[in-house]
């Protein structure tokens, strides 16, 4: 499903080059559950951004569902992200002016779905995530855990094939963090590919496949 071959990502900082990723080869199958761990600055987010089509590698090839995605235009990349990829961020990134339900519905708006259909879908998803009572709340009226659940609803609403989560529990306490991971794992059980970047060893261990990055290289790739 995701096939990375010889991926490197260099950043130019003044006159020094930072090798954020060097020669990454990685194959991730449909329905996999993968955690990425490693010290700060090891390139975890950079790898995730490349998988997410938010960043372009300096070198290497990337096949997504057998399709070469390197060199696609902004428009095409946006469409792939919209339809195939769900995002969960450390800082939730909800739009504070909009209600929880409106935040969840944004991907549907971007896809041009008619309002009625949108409303039904948003309600159904929010209910299944235990947020039925919170649909008209603004983000600042929600707890951290609720916010992240709203964000997961948003990531889910388009039925993506893969969910990318960059430190999804980074801003939550342990208990709510676990609940959020439980939710994501439930989605994975339904067949969604799940990739989680985390600093939390316990959370990282829960994945069936665990990558470890150091200095932009994969130094460990454990499956069980």
């Amino acid at each position, binding site marked *: 499903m995701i096939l990375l071959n010889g991926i490197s990502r260099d950043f130019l900082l003044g006159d020094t080059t930072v090798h954020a990723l060097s020669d990454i080869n990685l194959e991730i199958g449909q329905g996999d559950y993968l955690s990425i761990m490693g010290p700060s600055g090891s390139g975890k987010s950079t790898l995730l951004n490349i998988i997410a089509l*938010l960043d372009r590698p300096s070198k290497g090839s990337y096949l997504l569902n057998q399709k070469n995605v390197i060199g696609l235009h902004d428009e095409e990349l946006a469409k792939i992200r919209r339809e195939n990829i769900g995002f969960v961020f450390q800082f939730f*990134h909800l739009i504070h002016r909009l209600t929880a339900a409106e935040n969840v519905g944004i991907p549907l708006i*971007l896809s041009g779905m008619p*309002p009625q259909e949108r409303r039904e879908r948003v309600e159904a998803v929010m209910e299944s995530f235990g947020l039925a009572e919170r649909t008209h709340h603004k983000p600042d009226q929600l707890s951290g855990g609720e916010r992240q659940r709203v964000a997961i609803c948003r990531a889910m609403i388009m039925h993506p094939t893969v969910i990318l989560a960059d430190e999804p529990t980074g801003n939550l306490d342990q208990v709510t963090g676990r609940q959020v991971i439980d939710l994501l794992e439930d989605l994975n059980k339904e067949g969604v590919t799940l990739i989680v970047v985390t600093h939390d060893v316990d959370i990282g261990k829960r994945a069936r496949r665990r990558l470890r990055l150091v200095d932009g290289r994969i130094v460990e790739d454990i499956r069980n």
Partner: protein
Amino acid sequence: MRYIDNLNLAFNAIGAHHVRTLLILIGISIGVSSVILLTALGDSARRYVISEFAALGTNLIVILPGRSETTGGPPPLMGETPRDLTVDDAMSLLRSYNISRVAPITVGSTPVNYQGRERVVDVIGTTADMKEIRHLEMAQGDFLPRTDPREASPVCVVGEKIRKELFGPEKSLGEWLRTGNRRCRVIGIIKSTGVSIGVDLDDIVIIPVASAQILFDSPGLFRVLVEAKRSSLIGAASEDARQIIKDRHEGEDDITIITQDSIIATFDKILSTLTYGLAGIGTISLAVAGILIMNVMLVSVAQRRNEIGLLKAIGAPKHEILKLFISEALLFSVSGALLGLLLGLGATEIIKRLYPTFPVAVPAWGIIAACGIAIITGVLFGVLPAKRAAELDPILALEKH
């Protein structure tokens, strides 16, 4: 993204900052209303002046002695001073089929005396046709009688103001006035028309042209008023007049002809230009409003980096972000334009109430220009911030809070 959703999001974003939005709306609406108000004033002045000139008569041609154009050639060998225009010259113009009426005019000022009350007034010597040519109306009595223009009958017609000053509440018709060294009987009072361009008809005494020539001892006319039969014949009538006078003046073309429509056209042009100039000044304030929009939107883009980054990450292409922000600019400028339209129309309404005699009205082009320019500047100044938003790198935008 659907249009309605785009608008909704834009509306939502604008609504989140009341003070900022209000300031922008005030800025734009002041610009729009000042364009509307200034064009209304300019255009009304234009229409006012034109209607005043039109009221002087219809299909009017004015003939003056002497040539006013400088030909630039060597001075004429014979006779520097032009010939006088005489009453006979004037009356001979009636030979033209294109000319319906002719009124020779002599002017001067002289003391007028009635039973010891004396005033110096402007006296006009003319003929009966003056009444029709200048659309004069009588308050009492009649205008000059239709007699031989060479006949100096002892009659006069006076303006309303003169009547008041000389006679007060007493009877004036049939009374004898002394104008200069001649006596004349008052046979009519001109109806007051308020101030008109040129002569104040309330403040004059009109006597037969022959009487005036004797009074002022001048055989030459001040000018001749000519009325063409139809407006389409004004050109032909002017040509005829020029030819007739030339024949009578031994082939010398020594008159100046001014047509009413050329005066009106000139004033129309001058005042239109003035109005456009005023509209231009108003437009500057719209440009200022445009810069205001740009600033506010740049701040807004900076503050909403996160939101923009998120939208891009979850699949909004650049052009959707661009559209979203241009919609915001458009909302600002359209609502500001509407508000300004209301303000401008309200202000003209107030002026109308305060000065009922001055016909203020907003020309359609003024409204279209004001609103059009407001909306165009809004969008133009919105493009830069919108582009900046569209080009934002989602990774950097999402990095920190």
